[in-house]
């Protein structure tokens, strides 16, 4: 309690509050623009903090991270292009909500869910940091591989009407991510002997291509054919979620917050996995699954709660063990080290005041985000009044900038075009592109963890079946696949029967 009370004046002062405000805005802007990641925002913010006192510096980095994680949903909802990979699942129902004239409702649900998820994960972190850290550290390659297999099983839920097509999409995503240098052996794969191909397909670039390019083509085609839908003033109507909706979805949000915190605490996993698993969880346990993909509020609440709960989760191994879970937290770790805080078990004993300061900074960052985003919704939705064909020219330019900015490489611009064309052709062939994204996200982790597990076990498969945690995830994956296969076969059997009746 003493440490908490001493942390209050550390945080509630002008420089720290200013740093949190600035960090939040930087994170939000980078998170919102497709291609500009919050890791880039953190890299930009880190040098700014060099001249600052430790607490404002760390608060700014934390706020940038949280702002970036939250901002990805804005572009996912408004233009169907996720600002960050973590927001890809949000687009599934967020964009249909915007098309149904509920843009501001979707945006406000996203920010409320994000704040809720972030704060619940912080609470879990404060209460159980030691326990969760011990649990998370037990996740070796075999357990992470099993978790990723379980994550891949959510393709079943994203496959829309055909499991076969969903798996095809997932497989294409997995294949794309094998291009480039092999992470383990350094061997070149599918590079055709060129240096440029060695950098491989970047996840964010591929995601922009898959979501943005088909959207650009469809908008331009509709304009040329005279079929463009004119902006509707109803689309910019300001609407907040009702208490009834928030009450009804409270339990779902709590479950997704727990899920996100747990997944976030496992190094090497991250927001996209948590968001997709939470989305699938919401769909699977919904009384009316048919609403998903067509603008279900739960389809925004679940992924947004989970991906922001990841922020609290990632701080567990970061602070208690000094292990960063992803590149973004690695930048935060360097910020902590630069300012004399050495994460690990002794951090809580030697610097309890600073640890509580970080907790309070997280709370303040979420309060800032809540206000900035809720106030900003009225302005964000104004973008929908811009004629779609002109907005799409601007989106094309921004997508190219985003793709180029990832690695300052023209190769990424060509990748954007190629993956975009693949995405368009897949949609024409009725193959959903969301499983492709899941394959892109999970592919590298799947391969790396499996091969690491096999190296550790010297080629013996007992590393998988002697781990109870891994077996639980494998069993869950089998259950999900079995249930979906049964539902697909049932639907196939019913279709001809209903045709005959007709």
């Amino acid at each position, binding site marked *: 309690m003493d440490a908490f009370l001493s942390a209050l004046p550390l945080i509630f002062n002008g420089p720290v509050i200013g740093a949190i405000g600035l960090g939040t805005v930087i994170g939000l802007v980078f998170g919102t623009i497709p291609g500009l990641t919050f890791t880039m925002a953190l890299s930009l913010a880190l040098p700014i903090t060099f001249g600052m006192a430790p607490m404002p510096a760390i608060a700014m980095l934390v706020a940038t991270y949280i702002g970036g994680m939250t901002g990805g949903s804005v572009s996912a909802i408004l233009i169907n292009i996720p600002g960050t990979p973590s927001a890809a699942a949000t687009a599934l129902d967020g964009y249909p909500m915007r098309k149904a004239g509920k843009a501001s409702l979707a945006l406000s649900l996203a920010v409320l869910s994000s704040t809720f998820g972030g704060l619940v994960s912080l609470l879990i972190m404060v209460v159980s940091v030691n326990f969760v850290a011990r649990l998370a550290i037990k996740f070796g390659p075999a357990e992470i591989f099993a978790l990723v297999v379980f994550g891949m099983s959510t393709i079943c839920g994203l496959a829309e*009407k055909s499991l076969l097509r969903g798996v095809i999409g997932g497989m294409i995503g997995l294949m794309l991510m094998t291009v480039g240098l092999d992470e383990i052996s350094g061997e070149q794969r*599918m590079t055709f002997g060129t240096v440029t191909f060695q950098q491989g397909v970047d996840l964010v670039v591929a995601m922009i291509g898959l979501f943005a390019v088909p959207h650009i083509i469809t908008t331009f085609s509709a304009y*040329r054919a005279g079929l463009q839908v004119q902006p509707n003033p109803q689309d910019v109507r300001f609407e907040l979620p009702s208490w009834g909706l928030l009450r009804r979805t409270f339990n779902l949000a709590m479950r997704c917050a727990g899920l996100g915190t747990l997944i976030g605490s496992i190094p090497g996993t991250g927001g996209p996995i948590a968001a997709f698993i939470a989305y699938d969880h919401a769909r699977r346990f919904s009384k009316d699954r048919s609403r998903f993909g067509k603008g279900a509020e739960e389809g925004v609440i679940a992924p947004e709660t989970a991906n922001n709960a990841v922020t609290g989760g990632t701080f567990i191994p970061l602070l208690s063990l000094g292990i960063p879970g992803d590149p973004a937290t690695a930048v935060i770790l360097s910020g902590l080290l630069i300012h004399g805080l050495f994460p690990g078990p002794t951090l809580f004993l030697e610097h309890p005041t600073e640890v509580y300061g970080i907790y309070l900074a997280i709370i303040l960052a979420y309060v800032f985000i809540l206000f900035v985003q809720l106030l900003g919704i009225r302005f964000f939705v104004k973008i929908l009044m811009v004629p779609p064909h002109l907005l799409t020219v601007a989106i094309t330019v921004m997508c190219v900038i985003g793709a180029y900015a990832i690695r300052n490489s023209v190769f990424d611009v060509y990748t954007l075009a190629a993956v975009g064309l693949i995405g368009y052709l897949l949609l024409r062939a009725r193959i959903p592109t969301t499983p492709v994204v899941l394959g892109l996200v999970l592919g590298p982790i799947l391969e790396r963890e499996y091969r690491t597990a096999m190296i550790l076990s010297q080629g013996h498969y007992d590393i998988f079946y002697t781990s109870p945690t891994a077996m639980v995830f494998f069993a869950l994956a089998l259950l999900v696949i079995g249930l979906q296969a049964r539902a697909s076969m049932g639907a196939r059997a019913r279709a001809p029967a209903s045709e005959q009746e007709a």
Partner: protein
Amino acid sequence: MSSRLRDRIAAAALLAVALVWIVLVYTTIEPGQGVAMGPRAFPLFFGVVLGGLALGLLAESFTRLHEADDEPAQAMPGEATTVLATIGSIVFYGAIMESIGFIPSTILVAALMMVFVLRIWSPLKVAAMSIGLSLGCYLVFSKLLGTYLPPGTWITIYI
């Protein structure tokens, strides 16, 4: 085009991709040594699975008794041209961006898209949109957010 025919074309294309992939993987990637899997295993496995799934899609198109009820909307008139123009614009943008720099390349590509893709012929509208977009993006991304945008190697414009 019926959904069955569309599926058969898609399955054939996917099968071709899988076969080419498998051949390339087999001939260009080393299998690796030791007890652990080498770099070839996963790409090869994915290619084989994709081939199997493509055959599954082909078989489904023959065994399905009814037309698909989630048929995508028919292609809009001139959609193929739009696809080529859009993809071509992005590739062209990438090709000239580092040579002539961000600002001129953005002005050029935005103007070309306005004229050839959107068929907007008004010089004022085209100039306003392309120059405004180019300068706006430059100021926001380069000056405000600190993102690197290529200044150009043939001609260099600094603001």
